[in-house]
């Protein structure tokens, strides 16, 4: 029996988590989320502008989908900002889950490892179930895990870049060194093959947004990612053959016609 995919004790039947941003329109977002089979979706909080319409429609669409909500702290640059936004999210979305994002550089939106540890410690002490968006740095991930973050979300590449896995060694090492952590690759994936690659490495899940939302056909791409994640997971469980630098014929050599054995 395959081990279940759990986030802080909650079982999810899909190992794909999608974001809700950047879709061409709300209807396509809804269809893409439905067709992906995902059971959790990320979303955020921003200042309400009463003169702007559309916020209520988004909230209604998300609620209608009946998915688990994973609010983020995107855009936060300080521990206090992230903690306050997390507390606001908990009240509004009625969940202890928080995708903790703390940006350390505005060019590549790289997470700030020092602030991330400080904020994670505060939020865990306040009862949150923290899912930190982090780099693939092994020591940072170990520290976050030791603090009590049971789920870690290392990047594959910068958010929205679609570059795929920039450092496969680092991700493989994370999986190797943190065998009991729930590891979800978050950010930087552009193609279903990227998702399949990290699932083949043994990652527990994949979180992405832009690769689906910015595809020419987001609904079809959502399905493609769903299949890729499932295929990668099956491949990991199946166990890959060992690599070698030389060829081995797959068809038996014995009995090959046309060969003549030299007389001794």
């Amino acid at each position: 029996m395959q081990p279940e995919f759990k986030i802080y004790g909650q079982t999810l039947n899909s190992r794909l988590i999608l974001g809700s941003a950047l879709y061409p329109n709300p209807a396509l977002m809804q269809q893409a989320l439905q067709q992906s089979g995902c059971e959790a979706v990320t979303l955020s909080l921003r200042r309400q502008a009463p003169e702007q319409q559309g916020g209520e429609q988004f909230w209604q669409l998300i609620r209608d989908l009946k998915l688990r909500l994973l609010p983020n702290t995107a855009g936060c640059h300080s521990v206090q900002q992230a903690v306050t936004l997390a507390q606001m999210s908990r009240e509004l979305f009625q969940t202890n889950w928080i995708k903790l994002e703390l940006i350390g550089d505005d060019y590549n939106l790289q997470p700030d490892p020092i602030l991330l540890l400080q904020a994670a410690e505060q939020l865990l002490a306040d009862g949150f179930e923290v899912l930190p968006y982090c780099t693939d740095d092994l020591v940072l991930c170990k520290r976050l895990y030791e603090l009590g973050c049971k789920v870690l979300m290392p990047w594959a590449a910068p958010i929205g870049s679609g570059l795929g896995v920039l450092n496969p060694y680092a991700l493989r090492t994370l999986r190797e060194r943190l065998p009991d952590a729930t590891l979800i690759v978050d950010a930087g994936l552009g193609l279903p093959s990227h998702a399949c690659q990290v699932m083949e490495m043994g990652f527990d899940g994949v979180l992405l947004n832009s690769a689906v939302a910015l595809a020419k056909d987001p609904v079809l791409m959502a399905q493609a990612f769903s299949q890729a994640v499932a295929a990668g997971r099956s491949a990991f469980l199946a166990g890959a053959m060992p690599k070698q630098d030389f060829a081995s014929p797959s068809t038996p050599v014995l009995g090959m016609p046309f060969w003549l054995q030299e007389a001794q």
Partner: protein
Amino acid sequence: MAEVTDTTVNIWLNGKTEILNSSQLSDLLPRFKAPFAVALNGRFIAAAQYPEIALKAGDQLDIVSPIAGG
């Protein structure tokens, strides 16, 4: 926007200056559509606390609602 008088309070509301006729947070909130959450001077204010909050000049009030996110 109201004129500044002895009874008005000038605050930052969602990043913009705002002159309020009442200092009570609960008098301001009906302008906003649920669901929303509130922070005052960068700190979370739980819904149960709204009736107790009196705003002071220069306070920074943030009222946020759900949006799409990745």
